[in-house]
């Protein structure tokens, strides 16, 4: 019992968590012929909020047909609560020495291990940066019709060329922002 509990609290190595993420693809197909992906829920949530018969065409459809997907997202929120609060990792995150050195140079504390406190908690900076970054994430994932789950995991697992193109775009954008924007953001704001 103690071993099980310890295992539920500890972070999982890549060779355990990676295959579990990959299993989502056949699992969703098995459950009901669904393609595994999460970002389309952002569209369904917009469709839910938009009044019928007026507004943007892109959100004029019956979101109820996608209830299963919204339920999946609700599950992901609950899973985050369980894994991050109920079975929280008591140890600090086990980053590489190179990363620890970099964050120390950026003056970013490692507290919590998920988001730096200045981005995780309720500060004007967290709301501003996370909201602005969120706009790019929402816009980009819909423009590309998918995110890391729908393209990098599902798309590449089913050998789709468009997904490979999307993944290349995602990685290029991520490299550009992480190297050219993020370090400066912290030196300016913090």
């Amino acid at each position, binding site marked *: 019992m103690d071993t099980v509990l310890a295992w539920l609290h500890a972070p999982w190595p*890549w060779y355990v*968590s*990676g*295959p579990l*993420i*990959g299993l989502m*693809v*056949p699992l969703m*197909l*098995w*459950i009901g012929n669904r393609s595994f992906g999460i*970002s389309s829920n*952002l569209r369904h949530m*917009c469709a839910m909020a938009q009044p019928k018969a007026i507004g*943007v065409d892109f*959100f004029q459809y019956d979101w109820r047909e996608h209830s*299963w997907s919204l*339920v999946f*997202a609700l*599950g*992901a929120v*609950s899973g*985050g609560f*369980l*894994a991050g*609060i109920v079975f929280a990792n008591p140890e600090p*995150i086990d980053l590489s020495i*190179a*990363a620890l050195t970099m*964050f120390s140079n950026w003056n970013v504390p*490692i507290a919590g291990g*998920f*988001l730096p406190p200045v981005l995780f908690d309720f500060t004007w900076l967290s709301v501003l940066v*996370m909201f602005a*970054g*969120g706009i*790019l*994430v*929402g*816009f*980009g994932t*819909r*423009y*590309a*019709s*998918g*995110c890391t789950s729908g393209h990098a*995991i599902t798309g590449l*697992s*089913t050998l789709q060329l*468009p*997904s490979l193109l*999307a993944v*290349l*775009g*995602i990685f290029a954008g*991520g490299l*550009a922002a992480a190297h050219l*924007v*993020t370090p400066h953001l912290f030196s300016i704001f913090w």
Partner: protein
Amino acid sequence: MKFLPYLLAGLAFGFVMIKSEAASWYRIMEMFYFQSFHMYGIMMSAIATGLSGVLLLKRYGRLLTLDGAAIVIPNKAPGWINYVLGGFIFGLGWGVIGLCPGPIFALVGMGSIGALAALGGALVGTWLYGFVKKRLPH
């Protein structure tokens, strides 16, 4: 009741997002600076598992699906501009906030105000895309 499998699958997904630390801003920065194999290991083993799982399911899965239907994997629409450009824009956000949509939902469950702000932004971004869609190259 018919939604229960999706709730459980989503729960497992959110749980793994946290336990894999794929929902960690620190892990994403570490990945974009090539400082650890962790995230690359996750992506590669996830794709390898997904690929083998789909192949097995296609071959033997017809009798096994919950509703008895054949497995159909829809092809992504052809094109390239929207995939490359949309991916790039998404990546620009990901490289700063360190969260993609799956982790955003998982961190909202952890009570992160930052993640909630990211979710709000992502909804606004999604709506903006719907608003300008017709004027964008696809």
